[in-house]
C-alpha cells in the first residue's frame, strides 16, 4: 500500500515535471565545465606587437587555439571535426593564422585577435600524399602574399589575402613522393623521391607555377625515405640500412651527393640512427643510442660533428633572433633534473641560456619544445620555452620557472570510472570546515535576506558567490547524499587523473612507470579502467583500488600492462607486464573475501587468464565454472560467437590461472546483406527496482530483465558508409536482440530505407537507438521493450499473499522464455554522438535519456516520450498513468539541455553514476572538454532544495516556541484572576 501511495505521489511529481531545467543563478552550482585543447602538435608564437602576447597551437584533437602566454588561458579555440586533421599551422601577413587540414585539402585563415574565420579554400587533388604548408616570409608575387600548399599530390599557390588559388601544379602523374618544398626569391624547388632511390627536384617559377626544370639523381642504394631539408639547398637522408648519411646538394638545380658512414662519426654506431626532424640552419641532429650528434654540413657537403649531447629529450627548431643569429633549444636529463639550454647555431661553446628545471615526475618526458625570445630591459635576449610533455600537458617555462601548465591530457579521456571518497574522520570538526561560527551565521543571514526578498543587489552578489564557492562542495570526504565522488579518468597517454565531482579539480594524477615511453614500450596507450576492489561497507578504513589496462602499441599483439592504483591517493600498488596479449577484459560478478573483483583476460590465442592470481580466486571460479560465458563480436566477418571455459591450459608447465575455452554457438550474418555496425549491452552495474510493469487496468506485464542480452544493429553493406552514399532501396537496418548465453535470437526487426550510424543504449528491458531514415530524410529514434510472456500467468493474488510464487527464484537462460517485444519509432531532429540513460541508486526514479547532440550538447529526454504504449488518443486512465499522446517526432525543449549554454567540444562519451540519494544521478560528459552535472529526472522529491533556508525554519521554530511560552504565561495569569473573582 505504501508503495502504491509512493508511486502515485511519484507520478504526480513526474507529471508536473516534463521539463527539468535550472535557473540562471543555478549555473555553476552543481555543474562544472573545463576546456582543453589536447596534445600540441604545432606551436607558433606571436609576440611581436605590443598587444597581448599569445601562442597559436594546433593539436592532435584537431583544435586550433590561441593561448595567452601569461596565464595559459584560451583566447579563442576552434575544434575542427574528427576527420579534419590539422597538418600545418602558421601565421601569414602578421594577422592571419593559416591552418592546413584534412590531408592537405582545406586551407583556412583565422583572424589572429579574435579567431574568426577570414577565408577558407578547398584544394582539389587526386591522390593521397604528404601535406606541406609553406608560408614564405619574403616571397611576393604581384604584391600578394603567397602561401604554398602541397596536398593530395598537387602544389597550390594561394593568395594570403583572400585564399584565392593563384596557380596549381599537379604532381599526381609524376609518381613522386614530395617531401619538401623550398622557395627562394623566384624559384620554387619541389623535392622528393620516386621509389626509394631516385631523388627528384622540380624547379618551378614562383610567380606562375611554370615548370622550369626537372633534375633527378639515382642513388646507388636505397634510402630510408626520411628526407630532412637543411635550410639553404641541402638535404640529408639515411640509407635503408641506416648506416650511411647521404647529403644531397641541389645548388642551381644540379644535384650531387656525398655519403658518409655513421661509424666514421661515432665509435659506437651499433644502435639505430634516426635523423631528428628539427630544422636548424646548416645543421642536423642525428640520434643514435642515447646520444644526439649535431652535425654540421659544410658548403662542400662535408659532415662535421660539432657537438655530442647525452640523454637528450627534445630539440626545438631554429629561431632567428637577429639577422645572422640563429638559436635553438635542447633539453637534457640528468639524474631527475631537467636542463634546458639555448645555444647559438654557430657558437657551440657558450650557452645563451642554461636553466635547471624541476618538472613533476608524473608528467613524463619532454616530447616537444618550442622556443621564443624576448628582449630584456638590458637589451639581452631572454627565452621562453613551450614544452609538450609525455602526458600531453603543456608547460611554459621562463627564467627557470614553470609559468603555467595545462593538463591537456584530459582532452583525450578514453575511459571513466568512479570511486567513493574516504569517510569523514572523527577529528575533523565542522567549525574547521565552516571557518567560524560568525561566518556561518553571516552566510545564513544573507540567505535569509534573499529568501525574504530584502537583499540589496550587493547582498545578492555576495549570496551568489557564497553559493558558488561553498566549501562543502569540494570537501575531500564522503557526503550523506553521495554527490561527492572521485571521477577516475584514463587518458590516451596512459595517465590516470582523479577529478573531484564537486568542482572538477585534479585530486591526484599518476602515470604508471610501466606505461611510459621506453625501449620496450614505444607507443603506450591507455585502454580501459576498471574498479578492482571496492571495500565493503564494514571495512571503510580500507582504500578502494583500480585496475588500469594499457598497451604498448596500437596493435592487439603489442605487450600489455596492468597497473593497480589506490583510488584515494593515486599510489601505484602493483604493476604487471603481461606475458600474454589482451584482447578483452571481462569483469566477473564475483569478488573474493577481500572484495577484489575477479577478472578474466582473454588473449588473442584463445586463452583466458584469471586475475587476481590467488588460490581463493581459483576456488570461486571453480564453483562458478559452468556459469561463466562470454561472447565475441567479429565485426569484420559478421560473426558473433559464444564461448565457455573448458579446462586448464596445456603448456609444458600447468598454469592453473590459464584456461582454454570452447565455442558454444555462433551467429553468422549473411555478409551480402548485413554488416555489424553497432552492438550494445546492458551496463553490468545497473540496478533494476522491479521486474513488473503495472498497466492502467491493474494488469501486470513482466519485463524481460536479463544482463545477458545484446543489441546488434546490422546495416546493408552498401549503406554502411556515410549518409548519402546509398539509395533508400539499397539501405536497411536489421536489429537483433540476442541472448549471449545460449545464442538465441530473442527479437529481430528490419527498418527499410534506413542506415547508420546507429547509437544505442540498453537499460532494464528496453533499448533505444538512433539512426537515419533515408526515405524521410530525417533522423529517427526507436524504442524496443521486451516482455516475458512466460511469467504473465502469475495472476493468482493468494500466491503472492502467501509468498508461494517463484518469480524471484534464480532463472537460467536455458529455460526457454517466451518473449514479446513492443516497438515504436519517432523522428528526431539532431544527429547524435552518444546516448546514455540516467542511473539511480535503487532504480526507482523515472529515467531520462541523455543525448549527446551533434552540436556537442547534452539533451535530456524523458523516457516516457519513448514508450511503445503511446497512442494517438490515450484514455483518461492512461493519461493519468503518464502516457503522452503519440506524435511523430520527439519534442526538443530547449530548457532540457543539461549543458545549458555550454558546449562540450568534441563530445565522445557520457557517463552516468548514481548518487546515494535516489532522486539524483551524476552525469559526466567528456570530449575535448569535460562537463559534470547532477540531474534529478523526477525532481529532488527526497531532499530539500539547495536554497532551502534553514535559518528561516529555525527562526520560525524559535518564534513559535516563544509565542507558545508567552501565551501560556498569559493564560495562567488569566486563570488566576478568574479564580480570585
Amino acid at each position, binding site marked *: 500500500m505504501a508503495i502504491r501511495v509512493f508511486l502515485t505521489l511519484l507520478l504526480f511529481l513526474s507529471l508536473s515535471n516534463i521539463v527539468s531545467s535550472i535557473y540562471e543563478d543555478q549555473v555553476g552550482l552543481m555543474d562544472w565545465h573545463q576546456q582543453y585543447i589536447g596534445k600540441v602538435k604545432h606551436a607558433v608564437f606571436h609576440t611581436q606587437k605590443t598587444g597581448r602576447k599569445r601562442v597559436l597551437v594546433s593539436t592532435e584533437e584537431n583544435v586550433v587555439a590561441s593561448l595567452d602566454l601569461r596565464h595559459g588561458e584560451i583566447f579563442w579555440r576552434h575544434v575542427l571535426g574528427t576527420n579534419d586533421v590539422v597538418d600545418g599551422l602558421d601565421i601569414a601577413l602578421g594577422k592571419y593564422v593559416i591552418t592546413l587540414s584534412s590531408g592537405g585539402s582545406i586551407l583556412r585563415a583565422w583572424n589572429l585577435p579574435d579567431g574568426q574565420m577570414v577565408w577558407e579554400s578547398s584544394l582539389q587533388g587526386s591522390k593521397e600524399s604528404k601535406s606541406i604548408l609553406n608560408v614564405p616570409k619574403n616571397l611576393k608575387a604581384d604584391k600578394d602574399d603567397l602561401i604554398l600548399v602541397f596536398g593530395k599530390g598537387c602544389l597550390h599557390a594561394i593568395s594570403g589575402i583572400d585564399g584565392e588559388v593563384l596557380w596549381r601544379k599537379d604532381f599526381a602523374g609524376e609518381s613522386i613522393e614530395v617531401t619538401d618544398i623550398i622557395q627562394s626569391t623566384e624559384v620554387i624547388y619541389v623535392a622528393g623521391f620516386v621509389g626509394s632511390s631516385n631523388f627528384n627536384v622540380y624547379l618551378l617559377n614562383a610567380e606562375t607555377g611554370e615548370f622550369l626544370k626537372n633534375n633527378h639523381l639515382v642513388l646507388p642504394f636505397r634510402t630510408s625515405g626520411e628526407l630532412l631539408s637543411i635550410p639553404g639547398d641541402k638535404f640529408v637522408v639515411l640509407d635503408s640500412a641506416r648506416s650511411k648519411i647521404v647529403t644531397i646538394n641541389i645548388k642551381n638545380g644540379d644535384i650531387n651527393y656525398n655519403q658518409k658512414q655513421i661509424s666514421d662519426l661515432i665509435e659506437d654506431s651499433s644502435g639505430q640512427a634516426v635523423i631528428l626532424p628539427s630544422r636548424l640552419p646548416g645543421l642536423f641532429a642525428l640520434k643514435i643510442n642515447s646520444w644526439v650528434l649535431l652535425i654540421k654540413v659544410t658548403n662542400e657537403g662535408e659532415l662535421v660533428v660539432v657537438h655530442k649531447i647525452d640523454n637528450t629529450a627534445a630539440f626545438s627548431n631554429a629561431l632567428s633572433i637577429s639577422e645572422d643569429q640563429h638559436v635553438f633549444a635542447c633539453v637534457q636529463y640528468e639524474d631527475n633534473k631537467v636542463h634546458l639550454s639555448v645555444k647559438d647555431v654557430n657558437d657551440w661553446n657558450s650557452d645563451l641560456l642554461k636553466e635547471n628545471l624541476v618538472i613533476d615526475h608524473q608528467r613524463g618526458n619532454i616530447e616537444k619544445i618550442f622556443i621564443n625570445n624576448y628582449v630584456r630591459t638590458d637589451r639581452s635576449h631572454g627565452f621562453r620555452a613551450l614544452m609538450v610533455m609525455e602526458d600531453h600537458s603543456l608547460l611554459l617555462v621562463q627564467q627557470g620557472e614553470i609559468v603555467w601548465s595545462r593538463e591537456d591530457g584530459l582532452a583525450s579521456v578514453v575511459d571513466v570510472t568512479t570511486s567513493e571518497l574516504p569517510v569523514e574522520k572523527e577529528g575533523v570538526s565542522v567549525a574547521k570546515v565552516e571557518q567560524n561560527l560568525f561566518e556561518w551565521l553571516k552566510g545564513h543571514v544573507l540567505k535569509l535576506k534573499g529568501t525574504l526578498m530584502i537583499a540589496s543587489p550587493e547582498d545578492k552578489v555576495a549570496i551568489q558567490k557564497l553559493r558558488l564557492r561553498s566549501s562543502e562542495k569540494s570537501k575531500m570526504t564522503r557526503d550523506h547524499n553521495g554527490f561527492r565522488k572521485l571521477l577516475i579518468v584514463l587518458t590516451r597517454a596512459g595517465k590516470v587523473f582523479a577529478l573531484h565531482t564537486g568542482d572538477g579539480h585534479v585530486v591526484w594524477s599518476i602515470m604508471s612507470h610501466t606505461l611510459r615511453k621506453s625501449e620496450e614500450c614505444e607507443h603506450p596507450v591507455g585502454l580501459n579502467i576498471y574498479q578492482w576492489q571496492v571495500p565493503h561497507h564494514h571495512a571503510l578504513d580500507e582504500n578502494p583500488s583500480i585496475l588500469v589496462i594499457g598497451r604498448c602499441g596500437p596493435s592487439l599483439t603489442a605487450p600489455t600492462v596492468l597497473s593497480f592504483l589506490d583510488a584515494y591517493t593515486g599510489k601505484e600498488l602493483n604493476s604487471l607486464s603481461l606475458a600474454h596479449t589482451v584482447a578483452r577484459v571481462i569483469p566477473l560478478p564475483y569478488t573474493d573475501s577481500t572484495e577484489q573483483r575477479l577478472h578474466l583476460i582473454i588473449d588473442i590465442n584463445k586463452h583466458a587468464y584469471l586475475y587476481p592470481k590467488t588460490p581463493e580466486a581459483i576456488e570461486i571460479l571453480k564453483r562458478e565454472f559452468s556459469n561463466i*560465458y562470454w*561472447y565475441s563480436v567479429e565485426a569484420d566477418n559478421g560473426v558473433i560467437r559464444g564461448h565457455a571455459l573448458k579446462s586448464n591450459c596445456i603448456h609444458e608447465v600447468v598454469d592453473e590461472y590459464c584456461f582454454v575455452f570452447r565455442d558454444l554457438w555462433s551467429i553468422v550474418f549473411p555478409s551480402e546483406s548485413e554488416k555489424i555496425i553497432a552492438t550494445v549491452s546492458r551496463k553490468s552495474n545497473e540496478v533494476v527496482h522491479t521486474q*513488473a510493469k503495472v498497466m492502467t487496468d491493474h494488469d501486470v506485464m513482466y519485463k524481460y530483465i536479463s544482463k545477458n542480452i545484446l543489441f546488434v544493429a546490422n546495416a546493408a553493406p552498401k549503406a554502411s558508409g556515410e549518409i548519402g552514399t546509398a539509395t533508400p532501396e539499397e539501405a536497411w537496418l536489421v536489429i537483433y536482440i540476442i541472448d*549471449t548465453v545460449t545464442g538465441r535470437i530473442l527479437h529481430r526487426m528490419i527498418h527499410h530505407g534506413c542506415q547508420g550510424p546507429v547509437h544505442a543504449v540498453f537499460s532494464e528491458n528496453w533499448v533505444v537507438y538512433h539512426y537515419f531514415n533515408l526515405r524521410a530524410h530525417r533522423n529517427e529514434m526507436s524504442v524496443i521493450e521486451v516482455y516475458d510472456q512466460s511469467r504473465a500467468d502469475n495472476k493468482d493474488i493468494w500466491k503472492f499473499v502467501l509468498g508461494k510464487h517463484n518469480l*524471484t527464484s534464480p532463472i*537460467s537462460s536455458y529455460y526457454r522464455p517466451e518473449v514479446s517485444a513492443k516497438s515504436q519509432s519517432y523522428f528526431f531532429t539532431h544527429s547524435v554522438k552518444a546516448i546514455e540513460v540516467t542511473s539511480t541508486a535503487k532504480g526507482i526514479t523515472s529515467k531520462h535519456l541523455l543525448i549527446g547532440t551533434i552540436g556537442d550538447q547534452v539533451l535530456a529526454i524523458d523516457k516516457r516520450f519513448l514508450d511503445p504504449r503511446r497512442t494517438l488518443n490515450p484514455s483518461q486512465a492512461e493519461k493519468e498513468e503518464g502516457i503522452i499522446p503519440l506524435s511523430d517526432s520527439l519534442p526538443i525543449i530547449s530548457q532540457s539541455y543539461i549543458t545549458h549554454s555550454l558546449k562540450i567540444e568534441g563530445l565522445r562519451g557520457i557517463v552516468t553514476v548514481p548518487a546515494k540519494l535516489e532522486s539524483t544521478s551524476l552525469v559526466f560528459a567528456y570530449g575535448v572538454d569535460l562537463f559534470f552535472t547532477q540531474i534529478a529526472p523526477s525532481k529532488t522529491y527526497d531532499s530539500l532544495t539547495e536554497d532551502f533556508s534553514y535559518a528561516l525554519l529555525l527562526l520560525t521554530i524559535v518564534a513559535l516556541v516563544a509565542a507558545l511560552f508567552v501565551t501560556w504565561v498569559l493564560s495562567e495569569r488569566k486563570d488566576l484572576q478568574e479564580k480570585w473573582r
Partner: protein
Amino acid sequence: MDKGKAVIGSLGRRWAVDFSDNSTSRDILDPPGFSRASLDQDDSSLSRQKKDAESNWKAQKAWEVAQAPFKNLLMMGFMMWMAGSTVHLFSIGITFSALWQPISALQSVGKMFEPYKDSKVELLGPKLLFMALNLGGLALGVWKLNAMGLLPTHTSDWVSSLPPALEVEYSGGGLNFG
C-alpha cells in the same frame, strides 16, 4: 454517563437527608408513637418499584447508545461521497477517520455500557447492535479504501516491488580492444 447519574438523583445534589435511613447508630430517638417496623415494610416495596423503573430506564438508554453509531454511519457515508474517489489529503483524512472511529469504539465497548450495568438489564443485545453498526462503519471505510485503490487486491500491488530474479549464468564480452 453523567446524564444517567443526574437522573438517578442522589449524587447530583449538594446535600440530602435520607429519611429512609434506618440504621441503628442514631443519636436522636424516634418520636413517640413512631413504629419503625411498619415503615420498613412500606419502604422496601417502594424501593423495589423504584429499582424496576431504573433498570427499565437503563435498558432503554443502553439501546439508545447502541443505536448511536447509525447516525454516525450516515454522516460518514455522506462525507465519503463528498470526498470523491481520488487520493488526496482530504479523502485520505476522511477515510482514515472512518476507519479509526469504529475501531476505537469497538475497543471501548465495555466502558461504553458500564453505566447501564445491572443484574436485571440484558446488555448483550445493545452491545451486539453497537458492534454490528461499528463493524458496518469499518466496512464502509474499507470499501472506501478499496474504491480509492489503496487496498492490495490486485496482482499488481504484490509484484510492483518484486526485484528481478537472479540469473544463474553470467555472460560478458564484446568487441576486442581496437
